[in-house]
């Protein structure tokens, strides 16, 4: 009966519904059974939302879309792989050169953590995020088949059974905690104005360390991160302190942003959509193969110009070798035998245009769509543009906006390919 129910779920044409009917644990089982690839979107009635990404039934990423969502930095500190000072230093580097490397890569490069620790932290981040999403009992779910994750969300592949076991274990713990920590790890804690009159005021050393970290602005998650303890361990200790009347949980609003959020440049001024529309209009007007290829190179420059302007609005200077470094990281140095001339985040378009004209004079002109060389060059330039978009998009704070941005530029690339 149980298997049949899951089978029905997996085969449902419209894979969407209510979490009251199927919770995340059941949905994970269905994904695994069906070997699905795509993104499972969850929206809690209480306002939270999250996404779990799958590749052939295995979990490859998970994110909660909330201001206090679990970050890689928090996990690294809670697992005692990195200290607050080290993370602050890396965030500072990230702000100065936000497109160069991801935080995890930078930590490895600085020998603060090794590859294995990074992998474990990424897997832990995904598992802990999923266990939080799994306690939502009221809300909607919808599976978007084939939807790819933003590049920065990628976690090591995790079998769904591991996530299911973790979610079930957490749910069991949650039964005892939900009445004292209404927002889970995002519950804010404050001290009671005075202790209960009959309280002995004798504390376990860990409990005392927790109390010492409490102020109105801190969540359980932030306290755990500051103490470099797994947040569930801290929550277990906080539970009795709340019940005894020493700590008061609250769903405070106006939470100050953590350092990790600050590591993302405010890209509110980066008008991607207007840029995309402008590119499309330019593309439509290009008739010949060289014109189109040069237009693509210009789009890359326009993107970098817009990004540099956004940085200026944040009082940060974009590193002049940003474009060169992100292309180099992806192994893109040019197209065909031509090596891009890049200076201060701009491809030298005149030089590139001369190369294009010469190439197509030699190869013969005619219909661009039928010219294999054009198709090959176009794809390489499009790939470079995509990399620039990805690098920028990874710095957008909202995961939902990142997914939408990706949808929009993929739509533009459809026009390029027509």
């Amino acid at each position, binding site marked *: 009966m149980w298997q049949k129910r899951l089978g029905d779920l997996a085969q449902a044409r419209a894979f969407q519904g209510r979490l009251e009917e199927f919770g995340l644990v059941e949905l994970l089982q269905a994904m695994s059974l069906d070997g699905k690839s795509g993104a499972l979107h969850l929206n809690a009635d209480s306002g939270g939302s999250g996404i779990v990404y799958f590749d052939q039934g295995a979990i490859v990423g998970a994110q909660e879309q909330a201001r206090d969502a679990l970050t890689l930095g928090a996990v690294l500190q809670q697992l005692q792989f990195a200290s607050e000072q080290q993370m602050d230093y890396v965030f500072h580097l990230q702000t100065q050169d936000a497109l160069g490397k991801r935080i995890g890569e930078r930590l490895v490069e600085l020998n603060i953590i090794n590859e294995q620790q990074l992998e474990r932290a990424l897997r832990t981040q995904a598992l802990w995020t999923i266990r939080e999403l799994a306690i939502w009992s009221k809300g909607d779910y919808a599976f978007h088949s084939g939807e790819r994750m933003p590049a920065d969300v990628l976690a090591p592949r995790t079998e769904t059974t591991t996530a299911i076991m973790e979610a079930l274990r957490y749910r069991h713990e949650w039964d005892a905690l939900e009445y004292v920590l209404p927002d889970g790890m995002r519950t804010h804690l404050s001290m009671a104005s005075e202790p209960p009159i009959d309280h002995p005021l004798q504390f376990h050393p860990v409990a005392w360390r927790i109390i010492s970290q409490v102020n109105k602005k801190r969540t359980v998650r932030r306290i755990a991160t500051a103490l470099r303890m797994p947040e569930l361990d801290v929550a277990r200790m906080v539970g009795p302190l709340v019940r005894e009347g020493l700590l008061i949980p609250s769903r405070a609003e106006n939470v100050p942003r953590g350092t990790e959020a600050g590591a993302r440049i405010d890209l509110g001024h980066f*008008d991607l959509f*207007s840029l995309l*529309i402008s590119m*499309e*209009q330019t593309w*439509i007007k290009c008739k010949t193969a060289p014109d189109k290829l040069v237009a693509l190179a210009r789009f890359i420059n326009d993107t970098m110009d817009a990004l540099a302007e956004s940085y200026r609005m944040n009082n940060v200077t974009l590193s002049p070798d940003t474009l060169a470094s992100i292309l180099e990281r992806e192994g893109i140095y040019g197209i065909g035998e031509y090596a891009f001339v890049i200076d201060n985040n701009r491809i030298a378009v005149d030089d590139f245009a001369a190369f294009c004209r010469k190439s197509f004079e030699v190869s013969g002109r005619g219909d661009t769509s039928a010219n294999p060389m054009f198709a090959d060059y176009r794809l390489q330039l499009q790939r470079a543009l995509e990399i620039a978009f990805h690098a920028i998009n990874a710095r957008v704070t909202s995961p939902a906006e990142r997914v*939408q941005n990706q*949808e929009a530029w993929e*739509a533009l690339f459809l*026009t390029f390919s027509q």
Partner: protein
Amino acid sequence: MVDNNLGDVRERAHGTRTLVEPAPFFMDAEGESPPVMVIDDSPAVRSVVEISLKRVGIPAVAFEGGLPALAALSDGVLAPPRVLLLDIGMPKMDGYEVARVFRTNRALTDVRIIMLSGHDGILDRARAKLVGASDFIAKPFRAAELVRRVCVALGMVEVSWE
């Protein structure tokens, strides 16, 4: 249900198999049709407009051409929108032709039409006005400006990008 003068359109739409299959996600939470419809053959424009409007809480439904959009209206899959963003240069049925159908159909006459066009000449604007468009947005446009104009057409007072 849009009932009159659409038989020909319906036949053309179904005949050319361009009808977009109706799906429940066209409806908002109250089960009503989105207030904004976008008809544009450009995937990028459709995507950008839909997402930009969604970010300020305005549901929109997009079609790649006039025929499938009119078929969805004539079949009762969708109620008439309050605002139509209509591209002029489209294959099979251009924006002027679609606008004329809207203006000659009783059930669609209240729809405010905003024309989108890559050509921004005086004649283009005049022709758009002649077919009943209430506004004209030249491409390339700024997403924020498009959202603002839609909000004006919807009679919304305030718009927030937050």
